[in-house]
């Protein structure tokens, strides 16, 4: 949990937003996935989101669905996600946030899940299909094990829900940029600005924006608005393209990390750093 706080604080001191890339664990294999995470951290990630592949990812668009499919095909289930997280933790002090649908957590057992997440070195957990009303027990279990249960707010949430969700938030608040599932979008909801302002008003933790961020230009614009910028599908599409083009596996992490570096540069503009220093 402290690693998440530290990551945002470090960026805030430089008047920058945090860059938070998302990849599914195990896509396309354990070793390549681990190397992908390591290289996107080197490319400038402040926190990384590690996706747990799921058979029925309701909140995800085609790119992340296909990625989850590859990961499941590679034999990834919860234990392998924890294994990869632990391996990543051995070489990195970056904030690690697990992303998972609720059913794998229910089957594993709530308390056991958060205990093992902590044990593996995870700092936070995001469960997109566990809304506030259903999350009482999960929040208690997460708190018991010192893991941040990071909630989502959406353009349709409305003031009352945003207030309640933000008051109970740990780690950061995840603002869903637009209606719909994950995936690249040309433009964000007109209400995004207002949503971020509301979340900031009610939350005592930072506010990050995700869903649909597809280009360095968009990442730069969102970095002006929020404390963190989350990018998933756009990065994963690079994995998909590289696999389809027959790029040698060994070059895959570098290829994806190259794009991550562009995104990181957009989220962390150097002139801001200079201005603060």
């Amino acid at each position: 949990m402290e690693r998440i706080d530290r990551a945002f604080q470090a960026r805030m001191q430089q008047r920058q937003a945090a860059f938070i890339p998302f990849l599914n664990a195990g896509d396309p294999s354990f070793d390549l996935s681990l190397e992908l995470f390591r290289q996107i951290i080197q490319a400038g990630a402040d926190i990384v989101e590690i996706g747990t592949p799921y058979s029925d990812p309701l909140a995800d668009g085609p790119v992340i669905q296909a990625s989850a499919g590859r990961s499941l095909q590679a034999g990834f289930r919860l234990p392998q996600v924890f294994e990869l997280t632990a391996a990543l933790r051995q070489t990195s002090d970056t904030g690690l946030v697990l992303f998972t649908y609720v059913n794998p957590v229910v089957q594993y057992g709530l308390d056991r899940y958060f205990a093992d997440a902590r044990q593996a070195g995870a700092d936070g957990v995001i469960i997109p299909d566990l809304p506030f009303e259903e999350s009482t027990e999960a929040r208690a279990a997460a708190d018991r094990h010192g893991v941040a249960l990071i909630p989502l707010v959406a353009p349709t949430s409305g003031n009352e829900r945003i207030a309640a969700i933000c008051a109970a938030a740990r780690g950061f608040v995840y603002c869903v940029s637009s209606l719909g599932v994950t995936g690249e979008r040309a433009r964000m909801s007109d209400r995004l600005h207002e949503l971020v302002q509301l979340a900031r008003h009610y939350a005592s933790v930072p506010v990050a924006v995700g869903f649909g961020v597809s280009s360095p230009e968009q990442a730069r614009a969102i970095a002006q608005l929020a404390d963190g910028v989350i990018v998933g599908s756009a990065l994963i599409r690079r994995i998909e393209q590289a696999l389809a083009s027959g790029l040698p596996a060994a070059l895959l992490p570098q290829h994806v990390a190259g794009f991550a570096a562009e995104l990181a540069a957009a989220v962390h503009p150097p002139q801001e750093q200079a201005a603060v220093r």
Partner: protein
Amino acid sequence: MQPTPSSVEPAACDSTAANRTGELQYPDATGRFGPFGGRYVPETLMSALHQLEQDFNRLASDPAFQSELRYYLRQYAGRPTPLYYAERLTEHLGGARIYLKREDLNHTGAHKINNALGQALLALRTGKRRVIAETGAGQHGVATATVAARFGLACTVFMGEEDIRRQALNVFRMRMLGADVVAATSGSRTLKDATNEAIRHWVEHVEDTYYIIGSVVGPHPYPRMVRDFQRVIGDETRAQVLQAEGRLPDAVVACVGGGSNAIGMFYPFIADRGVELIGVEAAGRGIETGLHAASLTRGRPGVLHGALTYLLQDEFGQVKPAHSISAGLDYPGVGPEHAWLHESGRARYVPVTDDEAVEAFYLLTKLEGILPALESAHAVAQAVKEAPRLGRDKVLVICLSGRGDKDVEQIAERMEGERRGTH
């Protein structure tokens, strides 16, 4: 022969009349049936679900809405449907007197129209001009496309690619009715995946689109709402059997995929402890083969499509594909209220294989001149087992949820396969 009583009126969706015992109070305020149900959906949908719950609560006690729904159920859908005494099937089996609740005689050929009408009127009353639906066998898709045509609503139906293949007739019907049929190409390309696609689409269009869920599944308030729109089946049956036999039935049998015809039939009998409630799940190629859709018989509690319920899944909570000859039962989950009736022991859930269902399809066709849907044929197959066990002085009701015209081509293909020895 038993005449259909003309005094039985459609009961619409009045749930207050049934609260005779505590068990009927479900779901609670959080949408739970015992531990099951709830609302496990992305945050984007939560406000819409709260709004829907309020709208439904308001309209469920609005006499004008109720009377409008009653009007369409009677004049448009053709309710009440007959409770038909299956004389030759009864004689053939030599046991309990068997009645068929003829939901197959509804407009569009299945019970699905009861719910589609209710939800379409709800959509209209709440200002929505566009509806979406998921469909397995295509019966709910057809019912939704039908009411959309009748009320001038734009309509998109999500259907698994595999189901589009095996239910081509219904796809054609939906397109003629003006609906846009979208193929779900992910996963097992059946009902589960069509539901995923419908939910994903709804997340994006939640502000101007009403999602007409076709069964008693999904997040609260859908399982309750769909039940309340389908309970007209059981309410009519109860009155009709009392009129015909002067007493309640000893058992009612219904097939269970998501479980809307079964809940509609069971719910008004829950307080009648002497009535055995028997739900029939699809055992596909056989429970032991793993190729089945028997989520209550072989599944474990977990979360699917927004509700905590029984589902087919692996050790780590990945949903397993279901298998059934019948597209409408080919679903790895089940409505949360069924999970509760299963766990509380009030209803009994049993598996019936593809082969047994096909045999029952032929039996009913030959003895009664009624082609059941392959879904409903599962209920008939179980009745074949139950009637002799119950004995001649007992009364058994089968919910004949739909007609089998849509399945004729599939049955013909199977016959051809058997002839060639490839089956």
